[in-house]
């Protein structure tokens, strides 16, 4: 146990070892996510052209020298829009996952710890929320609170939360029954301290694995909401919006912009899921 004084080279070597342990599919997924992350942070800066500058004379024009991915229905540069759209496309699902996880873990741990009537009550409320399809709830929310990423994300988080709570509650109950938890109770350690310092940290591998799987669902659902025009509002760039606005190209025999946005979504979702699965295997 020399982690504290590990040399930077050793840290690198350990990281490289962990990376290799992911296997070929896992390594590819990690690279994809790294690229997506860079696009999300630096996308607008990396974009070679203004993603929002229309030029209708170039609408649905194929790839050219300075525009390797061609132009969209308004003649905007597709590569630049993909890069600029990465941010909202990834941020939305991230928000959903963060909110659903925070609320779900809190609810699961509290109800697993207290048990009894509280646990039973929480479980039945969750069962009711469980019955609502996430996307329906999100559409309802945007109808009430107005279209936009925030309302849709919150609604999706509410819909996803029962999934999280159910899985984590089961794990929390198993952890709660372990004698080390009883030993801490006998010492007089408060319930909050036991949960935050011992119980939840031991659930982290499961929480991480759940998050990655949920991220994929959230990304597809949010893209669908944006496609329906209820999420991110045009002309802002977003992969879901790009599929929606370029669908007219498909009957015209020019599906490339919609297809590229779709590929971005699919590739990121697969990468996150593969990585989540690898992490869960090790959890």
């Amino acid at each position, binding site marked *: *146990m020399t982690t504290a004084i590990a040399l930077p080279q050793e840290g690198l070597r350990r990281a490289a070892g962990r990376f290799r342990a992911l296997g070929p599919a896992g390594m590819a997924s990690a690279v994809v996510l790294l690229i997506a992350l860079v696009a999300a942070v630096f996308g607008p800066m990396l974009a070679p052209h203004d993603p929002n500058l229309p030029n209708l004379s170039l609408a649905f024009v194929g790839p050219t020298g300075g525009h390797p991915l061609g132009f969209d229905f308004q003649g905007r540069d597709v590569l630049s829009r993909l890069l600029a759209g990465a941010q909202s496309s990834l941020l939305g699902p991230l928000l959903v996952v963060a909110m659903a996880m925070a609320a779900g873990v809190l609810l699961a741990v509290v109800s697993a710890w207290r048990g009894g009537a509280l646990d039973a009550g929480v479980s039945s409320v969750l069962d009711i929320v469980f019955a609502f399809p996430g996307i329906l709830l999100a559409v309802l929310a945007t109808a009430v609170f107005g279209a936009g990423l925030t309302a849709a994300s919150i609604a999706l988080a509410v819909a996803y939360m029962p999934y999280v709570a159910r899985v984590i509650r089961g794990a929390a109950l198993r952890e709660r029954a*372990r*004698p080390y938890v009883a030993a801490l109770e*006998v010492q007089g350690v408060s319930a909050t301290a036991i949960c935050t310092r011992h119980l939840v940290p031991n659930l982290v591998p499961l929480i991480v694995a759940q998050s990655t799987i949920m991220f994929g669902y959230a990304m597809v659902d949010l893209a669908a909401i944006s496609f329906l025009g209820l999420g991110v509002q045009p002309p802002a760039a977003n992969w879901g919006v790009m599929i929606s606005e370029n669908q007219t190209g498909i009957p015209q025999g020019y599906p490339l912009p919609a297809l590229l946005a779709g590929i971005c979504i699919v590739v990121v979702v697969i990468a996150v899921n593969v990585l989540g699965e690898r992490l869960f295997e090790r959890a």
Partner: protein
Amino acid sequence: MPSVTKSGQTRPQDPADDGAPVLEVTGLRKEFGDLVAVDNVSLRLPAGRSLAIVGESGSGKTTVARMLVGLERPTAGTIVVCGQDRSRPSRSARTRRRRGRQVQIVFQDPYTSLDPRQSAESAIAEVLRLHQRTAPGDRARRVAELTELVGLDARQARALPRGLSGGQRQRVAIARALAAEPRVLILDESVAALDVSIQAQVLNTLADIRDRTGVSYVLISHDLAVVRQLTDDAIVLRRGQVVEQGPTSSVLDHPQHEYTQLLRASVPRPGWKPVRRPGVAAGTP
């Protein structure tokens, strides 16, 4: 069964039984729904002495242990430790910690008794932080003392549980319990899961700890040889009730109740022949 000492009686004939008891239990009862797990159990533990609670599965011995440390709430009866009643759950964090400094427990399974993410040192230090306001330097010294007391070396003290054997993990659990400097340590089948050669080491260590700290043990066990080795007094539980109690040597050498006699006769030893008891087999559902 006229010869059985009734629960609740003190034993004035006991020479060591002069000081105030460190633990006194009267009329303890626990019901789970319709099932009476513990029924009118009384016991008395003088300071510095060790008591065995002997029984098989379903005897209620583990339920008694859990009530003693406050993990279960008694249906009826009183538990008094160091003159303070602890029959009801504590309201305040201070009371909880004070109770933690009176009675501690070591469980059976060394593999689930420790937080897998915590080294021995860190687990002990956490308990010390909880109970005492000491400078970090003093705390480190106390951690070293405790790991040394239970026979762990410096490498083992820094290792995570997965890097330790079953016996070493159980030593960590004992050190963590002792960190609160309890007056009573409950050993709930704490050596039952250990290999024979390791069990002997841990039993020797427990004897040393008692000599050095004056802690009293309550040993919950089905193993009469371990009971003989570690305790002064014993009570025998069957289906939640005390069927026999007295000094360990007389309970084992001259068992009065037929159940104690049966327990004693069931222990394999050289020349032992297993016996089949017709009719007893039908007892379980």
